[in-house]
């Protein structure tokens, strides 16, 4: 398999619109990297540049130490799986999977063995004589993956492969991709706008916004220690609550609330004394307590949890994911506390960590 290095890559279109800014990434052998971000953030463009389907305006792309920046897509030894499957409707599943090898004029017996092996991995053996139109969306996506597997490429590239599937099928196919990665131990790059996919699949996540990389890290790092306000708001469902608050006398004061800080938090926020910051609290970290009063306006029962939406005393909206089943009515008052807090610089949006300067 392969190591991939993306060095200072920019993408500037002919109309001078820059889609990707200084993208850097080192992908280790056998690693599954997920590029996540909202629509238009440049993640698909980055993947297409790596695949060779888009020119790289600036920067370098190395595969196993070899510069492939100018190498045509067909010679890069990478296989791409598209959202739209891109299967040939007039060919059987067998023929679709064998197609790339047939074009390369490989020995038909070798092709046969590779196709059968890939079909076995993907559970498609009984479907090989069917046409794509006879298969479900999930099966079609598996065929698209099978077409990549038979080529035995150095790198697998997935461009939102599950977007066309319904929620149930998406979950099942996601697990299949994960199993496939464990089985093949292949280097994979996966693009999605779905943070659940990113968190469940990735060895490491690259979170992007407006063409810039916001943070690269493990799913836990992105969830637990977001680098900035964007990452904090993008990763996690429901999204993080944000409040404006001022650091004052060992506490945070906002509109309608005052929360005490722990000694560690006081240390982190020492340079911000008297200044306004953004306080971030995940809905699952809003717990029942006696610090702040929340006025409920909506109650959603999710089974194990109840998602309660309300206003803090000063009118700021807050969502709380409370463990258990509750039936709060509109106008009920619930006392809550913040179990865990994230702090962000008001101006830059960057996370405030130990030793930060205001």
């Amino acid at each position, binding site marked *: 398999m392969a190591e991939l290095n993306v060095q200072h890559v920019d993408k500037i279109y002919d109309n001078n619109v820059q889609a990707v800014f200084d993208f850097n990434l080192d992908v280790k052998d056998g690693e599954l990297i997920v590029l996540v971000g909202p629509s238009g953030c440049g993640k698909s463009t980055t993947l297409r540049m790596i695949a060779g389907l888009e020119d790289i305006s600036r920067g370098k792309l190395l595969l196993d130490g070899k510069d492939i920046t100018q190498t045509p897509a067909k010679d890069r030894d990478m296989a791409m799986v598209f959202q739209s499957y891109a299967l040939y409707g007039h060919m*059987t599943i067998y023929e679709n999977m064998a197609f790339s090898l047939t074009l390369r004029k490989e020995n038909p017996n070798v092709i046969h063995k590779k196709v059968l092996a890939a079909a076995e991995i993907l559970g498609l053996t009984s479907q090989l004589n069917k046409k794509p139109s006879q298969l479900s969306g999930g099966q079609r996506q598996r065929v698209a993956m099978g077409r990549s597997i038979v080529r035995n490429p150095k790198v697998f590239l997935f461009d939102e492969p599950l977007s066309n599937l319904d929620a149930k099928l998406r979950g099942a196919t996601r697990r299949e991709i994960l199993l496939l990665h464990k089985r093949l131990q292949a280097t994979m790059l996966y693009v999605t706008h779905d943070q659940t996919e990113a968190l469940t699949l990735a060895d490491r996540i690259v979170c992007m916004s407006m063409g810039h990389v916001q943070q690269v890290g493990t799913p836990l790092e992105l969830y637990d220690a977001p680098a900035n306000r964007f990452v904090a708001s993008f990763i996690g469902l429901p999204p993080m609550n944000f409040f404006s608050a001022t650091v004052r006398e060992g506490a945070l004061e906002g509109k309608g609330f005052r929360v005490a800080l722990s000694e560690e938090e006081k240390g982190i926020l020492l340079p911000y004394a008297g200044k306004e910051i953004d306080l971030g609290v995940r809905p699952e970290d809003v717990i029942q307590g006696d610090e702040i009063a929340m006025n409920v306006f909506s109650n959603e029962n999710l089974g194990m949890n109840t998602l309660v939406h309300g206003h803090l005393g000063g009118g700021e909206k807050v969502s709380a994911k409370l463990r258990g089943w509750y039936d709060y009515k509109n106008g009920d008052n619930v006392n809550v506390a913040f179990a865990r807090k994230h702090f962000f610089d008001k101006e830059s949006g960057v996370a405030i960590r130990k030793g930060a300067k205001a």
Partner: protein
Amino acid sequence: MNDDKLTRLDRMRYTKNTLASGLALLAILFDVFFFISIYESNVGSWYYNILMGASILYNLIFLLAAFLCSEGIKNYKISYAYVMIVLGIIQLVRIFIYPVTAHNSTVIIQEQAVTVMETPQFIRCALYLVLSAACLFVGAFVGMTRSKQLSAHLKALGLTA
């Protein structure tokens, strides 16, 4: 049986018999050439008119039957191989119906004796029919052989065709 031969056999489970099917289509092509060639004949009597009309009519039937055979044999259906053999025999028999009877025969057209079919035209017509028949025979043979091989292979795997 060695591994290569076994893989070749197993491939037939997922690939079409394009060789046999292609030969059936080639037989159609030669028949079309024959079809075109017989129009050059100087038919001046009701006898040759009827013979040529019948030949045209049969050509239409042949085109349909041979095309169906091409599709059937492509999917390793052995019964179509037998139909192809019958069609091939008929193509050979046809040589002795129209081209042979018309060859060097004369008819009166506008009070002049003319030859219905000259020798070069006869050779062309006969050749096209022979080639068409040959394609059908070879296609049927290939189809039959591969169908039997596939059936035996599927039987060995405990599957049905």
